[in-house]
């Protein structure tokens, strides 16, 4: 009995009897220059504008003021319990511990336990200005995927040097993490749906509030 | 005729079978305008049909006979002009495909050559003759329906409206949802009549909303469809082909 694998591959090869060039790249050239930056006048301002357009909060502060900005964000969102990734900046952690109950994810919290936590604070990997997208590669300062998903409020700290013009540059920066097998999550505003009469509703299953702290 | 934009230019008129049979005023108008601009118009008498009704219904073998006849009829002309976006699109986009299926390399070559020399009336005026003012006079309020083939397959762009805007006395008013198909679609109107009627009804409603005296298009099949609904509904708006607007002069009005 032939396996499904062998049969499907045989069908594919039969279907492609008209293709006589074995090299895919030579057979079908792609007229595209990958990874090009967009010539945006002010990339960081563009990111701010696009994230605000999604209805998310974004503030820009000097690096030294990040702990205060995080505390202000948690206060504004009325979060009294917080879960933090293990590798989060120590100064940030100290400031957060002063205003909220910090739940450790060690041993890992169950989904239900995470669901009872008000907020999560993470760093980020890359931000893409033109589409207002923040990418996490779930490194130690961002934590496992469930942390930035189940709690209803997400404070995300992005460094200005992580901001690129648009998706092509962003993919190029993220490619090493993807090739290394790391999971990657792109976040563009809070969760949303347009499933009822295509009317946009902010906030469904993912964190309903996204608060971005942009650090110079 | 010296000094005229088309002075001495030999042009083959592809009247199209529909206009030849049902709306002869349209190809007559093309002749009038082209001769007014100095062209020498010829009507190759062997011509029939681009074959799109057969091609688009799936009867490729029947359509191939049209392709053979078409390339034979129009051989030797540098400029082939037709007052129909869909017929021009069929010649340009479908004849080579049909020819290839026959395996007849000579037919493929002939079809490619004919396709490259075939232009919509508005393309010929604007691109070849370089004119938008053709000396027409049409003192009416008109709206323009950009037929699908003209707009999307031939990419006529603003050529038709530039020609209309240059007509003396003509007031051009925008058509709401202009880019939506009128619902004709050849055999679509017969095979899926309910949807075709729903589309035609919406198009006719938009035409009436403009308050225009005339709805103009470069495609008589669309006009037959839209005009059929307008007439049935008792609307006062009349249909007229773009070529007939351009043919109309002060002398006609007098």
């Amino acid at each position, binding site marked *: 009995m032939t396996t499904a694998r062998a049969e499907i591959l045989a069908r594919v090869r039969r279907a492609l009897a008209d293709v006589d060039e074995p090299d895919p790249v030579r057979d079908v050239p792609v007229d*595209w220059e990958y990874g090009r930056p967009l010539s945006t006048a002010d990339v960081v301002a563009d990111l701010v504008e696009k994230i605000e357009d999604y209805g998310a909060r974004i503030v820009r502060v000097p690096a030294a003021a990040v702990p205060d900005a995080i505390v202000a964000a948690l206060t504004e969102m009325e979060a009294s319990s917080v879960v933090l990734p293990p590798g989060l900046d120590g100064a940030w952690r100290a400031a957060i511990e002063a205003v909220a109950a910090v739940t450790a994810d060690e041993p890992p919290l169950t989904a239900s336990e995470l669901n009872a936590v008000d907020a999560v604070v993470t760093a980020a990997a890359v931000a893409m200005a033109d589409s207002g997208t923040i990418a996490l590669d779930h490194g130690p300062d961002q934590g496992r995927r469930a942390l930035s998903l189940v709690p209803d409020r997400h404070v995300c700290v992005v460094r200005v040097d992580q901001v690129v013009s648009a998706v092509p540059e962003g993919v190029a920066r993220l490619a090493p993490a993807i090739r290394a097998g790391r999971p990657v999550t792109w976040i563009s505003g809070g969760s949303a749906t347009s499933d009822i009469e295509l009317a946009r509703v902010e906030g469904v299953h993912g964190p309903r509030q996204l608060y971005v702290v942009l650090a110079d | 005729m010296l000094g005229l934009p088309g002075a001495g230019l030999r042009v083959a008129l592809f009247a199209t079978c529909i206009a030849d049979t049902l709306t002869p005023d349209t190809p007559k108008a093309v002749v009038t305008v082209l001769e007014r601009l100095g062209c020498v118009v010829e009507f190759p008498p062997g011509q029939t049909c681009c074959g799109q009704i057969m091609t688009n219904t799936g009867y490729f073998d029947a359509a191939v006979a049209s392709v053979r006849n078409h390339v034979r009829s129009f051989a030797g002309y540098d400029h082939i002009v037709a007052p129909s976006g869909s017929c021009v699109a069929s010649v340009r986009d479908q004849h080579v495909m049909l020819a290839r299926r026959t395996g007849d390399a000579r037919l493929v070559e002939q079809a490619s050559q004919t396709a490259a020399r075939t232009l919509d009336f508005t393309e010929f005026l604007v691109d070849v003759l370089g004119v938008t003012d053709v000396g027409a006079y049409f003192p009416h309020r008109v709206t323009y329906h950009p037929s699908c083939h003209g707009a999307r397959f031939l990419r006529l762009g603003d050529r038709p409206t530039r020609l209309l805007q240059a007509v003396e006395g003509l007031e051009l008013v925008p058509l709401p949802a202009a880019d939506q198909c009128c619902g004709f679609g050849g055999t679509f109107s017969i095979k899926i009549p309910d949807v075709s009627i729903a589309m035609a009804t919406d198009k006719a409603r938009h035409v009436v909303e403009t308050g225009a005296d005339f709805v103009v298009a470069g495609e008589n099949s669309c006009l037959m469809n839209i005009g059929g609904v307008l007439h049935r509904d008792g609307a006062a708006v009349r249909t007229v082909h773009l070529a007939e607007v351009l043919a109309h002069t002060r002398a006609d009005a007098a």
Partner: protein
Amino acid sequence: MSPNSAPAQRRTPAPPPGTWLGMPAFPKAAREQLQRAEQRQNLARATTHIRGKRAERAAEVADWEELRTAAAQIKTRVARHLDTYLVQAEEAMTAAGITVHWARDAAEANRIVGEIALAKGVDEVVKIKSMVTQEIDLNEHLESIGVAAWETDLAELIVQLGHDRPSHILVPAIHRNRREVREIFAEEMGRYGTPAPPTMTDDPEELAEAARAHLRAKFLRAEMAVSGANFLIAETGTVVIVESEGNGRMCLTLPETLVSVIGIEKILPTVADLEVFLTLLPRSSTGERMNPYTSLWTGVTPGDGPQDLHVVLLDNGRTDVLADPEGRAALRCIRCSACLNICPVYERVGGHAYGSPYPGPIGAILNPQLRGVASEVDQALPYASSLCGACNDVCPVRIPFTDILVHLRHKVVEHKTEHHPTAEQAAFSAIGWVMADGRNLAKAQLASRAGGAVLGDRWLGNRVIGRLPLPIAGRWLRARDVDAPPAQTFRAWWAARTPAAPPVDGSADAATEDRA
């Protein structure tokens, strides 16, 4: 059996009775759908809105047309070398800890997913909205083996709880308005879990809140999830899913086991190719610069997300599409639904008329290729278009819809006339004969003018339907009047005008007739 009186042993809401292919063919189905006034309003409002958003977001991207070209080329490259890329993707996924399965058809894919569920001992799974699992009708297979499959996308939830079928690729409940959604949630949610709040109004925010509460319990306890995929990267074995609500992330992150059913055409060669598709897809689809969430995973990450990952690579007719060089461009489709939203036919009849979870222009070219043209439903689909070409222009992967529609019409004609001639074929052969020569046309024109003379009036309308010889004329004249044929053809006018020109036989006859 009414859909609301499903047998008690069912675990999930019963879909409507019947099958996609058991539905009436497009012309009849379209007539039925056109009569639903409320649905027509819902569709017109929604498609008009999303069309505008798409156009605005596409216009923001300076090199949009170049991106479309690149996307078409990348997908063409994949299709023409699919065996190479499939093997590469399989190797990469296996190395990353994913168990790869292959399924020749729907039954095989369903069996694989079902066996995983039974082996895991689960009696329910949570699902991310996926076209491919609609295509194979996975939910009903799982139901039949005692496993409840819960849709977690808001629109899919509306469809599932409403005992309904999806009618749109992106917004499966596009045919429903907020009032109908409120009724469905109020009636059904309590039967299958957390009920809707009694105070819930038809405000979309409150409806979304009810869905959040209803599904949260299911997410938190879920042990297994099922997804499709938007892209599968051959280079790394990375699976990519784009979504909006976060239900996808819940399914991809919380359960221990994740099974992704992926059509074999979903491959992209490299990670870098994502820049093209993640720019085109959200703007073409929801008309947003970016969808709220995109998840990329490359096998198992210890301590993060599902530890038991499966991918089912599905053929189910795709290799048949691939085998047709004229039709295989349909496999480029990235399921954005821009072609549905722009289509004047879809806008008026909605998705249920197409006899498949793939409606609209993409359904019209994909279903008859995936399933063949043996059924009446699939024979009708290539004709479910006025060939207006609006879909060609919005497609982010430049699928030549109208060319493929015409090609498939030819295939349908060949299939229908393979064993015996048809009346339509005879009619078109006659037209073909007329149009093969100017003399033939001139003779036919004489006959048509004779017909016009008999009818004797400039406008033909209601009054004359019964007097016309062809039944098809009635379809035209039902809503439209038509000009009677003119007294003189152009051909005849020309011959009379230029007597010096060498006449062909037919036109000479015609000219004589005119003078008479």
